[in-house]
C-alpha cells in the first residue's frame, strides 16, 4: 500500500497511518471505538489513550470502546517499546480525535445554522449558544472519518483540560482482580489441544535422534512434532503434554554446543568488537599535572523473567493461520513468521491479547512461532503452547552483559576537565522485523533453518547499548566509545532501558567518585556541571524531598545516595535518592524520586510506572544474574534467580515536576539507571566501599569489605 506523501509531517503514528477511520469510529449508539496499534503490556497505556481521546472529544471516558490490536484491523504502529507509546499512539489519537471533533462541529454548525464559534460540547452533546443542540451520535456516519488526517488540526490547549493530567482508574484492573480470563494464557477454544516444546540442552546443539515410540503411546498424546532440531509434543490435556515433553527430553540425543564463555561479563573485553565514537567534544587532553581517575563497571546477563512464562494459541484452517499472541509487535512478528514458513504474510491473522508483563523482548514472539509450527502439524485444532518456567529462563533473549570503563580528570577548579566513557556490549535488539533474517528461536532449529537477522542496536540518539552513554553534564572535553560485540554466545535483546541501565549506573557512580575526590557534595557537584534547567530541577526536587544534607555521611550501616538521568537524553528526567541499610546484605529501605515527564496524562499511571521501575531496578541491581556453564544456562527457576520480595521492598515517595504545556514523555524506563547508581552511591556513603559489579550480592559485599 502506498501513501501519497503528506505536505507536512503528521503527528505521532498518523504519519505512517493517516486514515482517520483506522483509528476512530463515532457510533450511533453513543460510543466511540478506538483502535490503537500499541498494546497493553501492563503499563496502563490503553487507559491513557482513553483519557486522551475522551479529553479531545469532550466525552465521558466510559463511552470509549477499545479494540485490541489485530493485523486485519489496526494501524501498524510497529513495536510497543521504548516508552514511545504516548508520543506515537497518544499523539496520533489526540490529533485524530481533535479532527473528529472539528468535523462534527462543522456538521453541527451547518445543521443548527450557526457558526462553529457559537458551539460548545459536553459529553457528545453539541449546544449552540442561542439554543438548539445535536449530538455526535446523530451527526456521525461512516463518511465522517473516511479521510486522511489534516496537518492543520489544532488540539485542545492544555489549560482547557478536564481529564488529562488527572488520575483515571485503569480500565483493565477490575477484571484482573476478579481473576477473569484476560490473558492469552487463558484463551480456551473449542477442541483446543496443548503442546510443549523440548529445547536442546544448550545453544548451538542439534538433535541427533529421538526414540519417539514410548512417548507416542503415552496417554493423551496426539502427535510428536519434529522438524530438524525443533521437537515437541501435542496432547489432549495440558498435564499430558508436559509429562510427554519430560519423557521426550529424556530420550532425545543432541550434539554440538559447548561454546559458552566464562560466566563473567568481562569476557566481552576479549571478543571481536566494532568500535564507534558516539560522542566527542573539546580537545587538548588533560593538563599534565591533572589527577586521573579510572573505574570499571559491569552487569551480567539478566532476564526479563516475566511472571507468566510466554504463551500463544494458533489455529491452521483452510490455508490460513490465526494466531493469538502477547507479542509487543504483531506486524513485525507476522513478517518474520511468513519468512520462516516461506509463505505470504496474508496467510496470517495475528491478534494481540495481554500476557504477563514483559519489560522488553521476552519469549512472546518465540512461543508464537512454536504455536504456528504445532498448528501446521495438526490442522483445524487450536493449539495452545506455554513455555515452562525452565524454558523461559534458559531461552528468553537476555539483557546483554556490559562492561563500562570510565576515565576522567579533575581541573584545578575541582570540576571535571576531561571525561572518557568506553563500553562493551552485545546488541540490544534482536526483535522480529530485523533486516536480512528471522528472529524467532524455532525458525533457527528447523530442518530448513532460516538465519537470524544481524543483531543490531537501535540507532542514536535513542541508541541501544550506547543508550545514555553520552553524559548530559556539560564537560569541557568528552569522548564516548561503543564497542559492539555483535556475535553473542547467548541471545540478547531489548530489556527495559537497554544500555541505559548500565551506562547511567557507570556515569552516576563515577560522578560520585569524582565528587568525593573533589571533596564536594554529590548533589552540588552534579548541579555544578549541569546547565539544563529541567535536569537541575529534578535533582533539586529529589534533594528537597529527601531532606538531603550537604556532605551527609553514612554511619557504617546506613547511607544515602543519588542518581540522575534524562532517559535516552531525550525522554523523561529523573533523580532518585535511596537509603540503604547494609548488614550481611544490602537492603534499600527508602526511595525518593523526582520526575519530569513533560505533560502528565494519567497521574496515577505515571506514579505506578515509576514505583515499579524503582522496585524492579533494585531487584536487578542487588540480586539478578543469569548463570551458565560451557554448555547451557544453569539458571532455570526462581530458586536460582531470586528477585526482590515483599519483605524487601522499600517505601517509595514520588513527585512530579508538572509541565502541562510541554509534550508528554514516556515514563516506563526512566528509573533504571538513576536507581542503580543511587544504590551504589548509598552503599559507598554507608561503608566507604565502592560496589561496581552488579549484582551487589552478599558475596560481592563481603569481598569488597575484606
Amino acid at each position, binding site marked *: 500500500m502506498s501513501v501519497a506523501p503528506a505536505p507536512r509531517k503528521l503527528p505521532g503514528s498518523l504519519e505512517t497511518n493517516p486514515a482517520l477511520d483506522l483509528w476512530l469510529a463515532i457510533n450511533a449508539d453513543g460510543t466511540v471505538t478506538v483502535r490503537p496499534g500499541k498494546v497493553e503490556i501492563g503499563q496502563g497505556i490503553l487507559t491513557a489513550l482513553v483519557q486522551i481521546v475522551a479529553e479531545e472529544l469532550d466525552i465521558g471516558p466510559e463511552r470509549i470502546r477499545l479494540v485490541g490490536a489485530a493485523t486485519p484491523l489496526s494501524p501498524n504502529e510497529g513495536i510497543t517499546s521504548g516508552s514511545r507509546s504516548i508520543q506515537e499512539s497518544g499523539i496520533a489519537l489526540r490529533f485524530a480525535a481533535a479532527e473528529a471533533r472539528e468535523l462534527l462541529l462543522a456538521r453541527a454548525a451547518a445543521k443548527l445554522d450557526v457558526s462553529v464559534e457559537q458551539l460548545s460540547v459536553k459529553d457528545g452533546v453539541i449546544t449552540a449558544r442561542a439554543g438548539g443542540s445535536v449530538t455526535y451520535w446523530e451527526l456521525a456516519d461512516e463518511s465522517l472519518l473516511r479521510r486522511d488526517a489534516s496537518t492543520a488540526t489544532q488540539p485542545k490547549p492544555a489549560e482547557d483540560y478536564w481529564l488529562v493530567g488527572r488520575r483515571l482508574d485503569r480500565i483493565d484492573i477490575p477484571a*484482573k482482580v476478579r481473576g477473569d480470563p484476560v490473558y492469552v494464557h487463558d484463551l480456551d477454544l473449542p477442541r483446543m489441544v496443548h503442546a510443549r516444546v523440548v529445547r536442546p540442552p544448550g545453544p548451538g546443539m542439534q538433535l541427533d535422534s529421538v526414540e519417539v515410540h514410548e512417548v507416542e503411546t503415552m496417554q493423551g498424546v496426539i502427535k510428536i512434532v519434529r522438524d530438524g532440531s525443533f521437537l515437541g509434543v501435542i496432547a489432549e490435556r*495440558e498435564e499430558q503434554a508436559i509429562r510427554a515433553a519430560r519423557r521426550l527430553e529424556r530420550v532425545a540425543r543432541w550434539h554440538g554446543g559447548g561454546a559458552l564463555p566464562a560466566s563473567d561479563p568481562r569476557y566481552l573485553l576479549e571478543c571481536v568488537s566494532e568500535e564507534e565514537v558516539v560522542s566527542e567534544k573539546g580537545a587538548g587532553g588533560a593538563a599534565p599535572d591533572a589527577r586521573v581517575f579510572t573505574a570499571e563497571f559491569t552487569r551480567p546477563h539478566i532476564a526479563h523473567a516475566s*511472571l507468566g512464562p510466554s504463551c500463544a494459541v494458533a489455529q491452521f484452517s483452510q490455508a490460513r493461520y490465526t494466531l493469538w499472541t502477547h507479542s509487543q509487535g504483531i506486524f513485525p512478528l507476522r513478517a518474520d513468521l511468513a519468512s520462516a514458513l516461506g509463505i505470504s504474510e496474508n496467510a496470517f491473522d495475528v491478534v494481540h491479547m495481554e500476557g504477563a508483563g514483559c519489560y522488553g523482548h521476552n519469549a512472546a514472539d518465540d512461543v508464537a512461532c512454536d504455536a504456528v509450527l504445532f498448528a501446521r502439524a495438526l490442522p483445524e485444532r487450536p493449539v495452545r503452547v506455554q513455555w515452562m518456567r525452565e524454558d523461559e529462563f534458559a531461552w528468553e533473549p537476555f539483557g546483554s552483559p556490559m562492561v563500562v570503563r570510565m576515565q576522567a580528570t579533575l581541573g584545578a577548579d575541582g570540576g571535571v576537565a576531561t571525561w572518557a566513557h568506553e563500553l562493551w556490549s552485545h546488541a540490544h535488539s534482536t526483535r522480529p522485523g530485523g533486516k536480512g533474517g528471522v528472529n524467532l528461536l524455532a525458525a533457527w532449529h528447523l530442518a530448513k533453518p532460516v538465519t537470524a537477522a544481524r543483531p543490531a542496536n537501535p540507532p542514536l540518539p535513542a541508541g541501544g547499548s550506547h543508550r545514555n552513554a553520552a553524559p548530559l553534564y556539560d564537560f569541557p572535553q568528552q569522548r564516548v566509545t561503543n564497542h559492539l560485540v555483535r556475535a553473542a554466545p547467548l541471545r540478547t535483546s531489548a530489556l527495559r532501558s537497554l544500555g541505559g541501565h548500565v551506562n547511567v549506573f557507570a556515569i552516576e557512580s563515577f560522578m560520585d567518585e569524582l565528587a568525593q575526590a573533589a571533596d564536594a557534595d554529590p548533589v552540588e557537584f552534579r548541579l555544578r556541571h549541569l546547565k539544563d534547567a529541567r535536569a537541575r530541577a529534578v535533582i533539586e526536587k529529589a534533594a528537597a524531598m529527601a531532606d538531603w544534607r550537604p556532605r551527609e555521611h553514612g554511619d557504617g550501616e546506613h547511607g544515602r545516595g543519588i542518581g540522575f538521568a534524562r532517559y535516552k537524553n531525550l525522554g523523561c528526567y529523573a533523580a532518585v535518592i535511596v537509603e540503604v541499610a547494609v548488614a550481611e546484605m544490602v537492603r534499600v529501605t527508602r526511595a525518593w524520586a523526582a520526575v519530569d515527564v513533560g505533560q502528565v496524562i494519567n497521574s496515577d499511571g505515571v506514579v505506578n510506572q515509576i514505583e515499579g521501575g524503582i522496585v524492579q531496578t533494585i531487584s536487578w541491581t542487588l540480586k539478578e544474574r543469569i548463570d551458565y556453564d560451557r554448555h547451557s544456562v544453569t539458571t532455570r527457576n526462581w530458586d536460582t534467580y531470586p528477585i526482590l520480595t515483599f519483605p524487601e521492598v522499600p517505601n517509595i515517595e514520588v513527585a512530579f515536576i508538572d509541565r502541562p504545556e510541554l509534550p508528554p514523555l514516556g515514563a516506563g524506563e526512566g528509573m533504571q539507571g538513576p536507581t542503580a547508581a543511587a544504590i551504589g552511591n548509598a552503599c559507598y556513603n554507608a561503608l566507604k566501599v565502592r560496589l561496581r559489579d552488579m549484582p551487589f550480592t552478599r558475596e560481592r559485599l563481603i569481598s569488597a569489605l575484606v
Partner: protein
Amino acid sequence: MSLVIHVNGAAHTVAAEPETPLLYVLRNDLRLKGSRFGCGQGLCGACMVIVDGKAVQSCDVPVSAVAGKSITTIEGIGTPDRPHPLQRAFIAEQAAQCGYCVSGIIMTAKALLDVNPHPREDEIRAALAGNLCRCGTHTRMLRAIRSAGEGAPT
C-alpha cells in the same frame, strides 16, 4: 479416572489422573482461569488458592490430595456486583500493572485476613514472602491489604 472436588462451594466430578496438579484441573476442567501458571514448583504464588483455610500453591499439589477438602479460588471470593473487600481495595489503590500475580496475591492476603483481620505491615509482608510480583507494584498491594484489613470489624 474421576474424582470429586469441592470448589467455591460446589462439587465437581473431574476426569483427571490423580497426580494431575490441581492448577490444570481448575483451569482446564473447571475453566477457572484466575489461578495462573508461573513456575510449576510452588516458587512464585501465581497459582495460589485456599484449601481448608490455608493458602496453597495449586501448581504443586496433586488433585487427589485435595479431594474432599474445601477449595476457594479467586473466582469464589466475590462477584462483579459484590467484590470482596480485598478486590475493592486493590481497585481503589490501583494495585496492579500486568496483573498476572494479582489473583494469587489476593488469595494469600485473604488467607491471612481470615485468621488475622488486622495484621501489622510486617505480618502482611511476611505472609506474602512467597508471592512474586515482577512489575513492582508491591507498595500498592501492601496499602490495599492494609486498608481491606482496616475495614474489617474489630
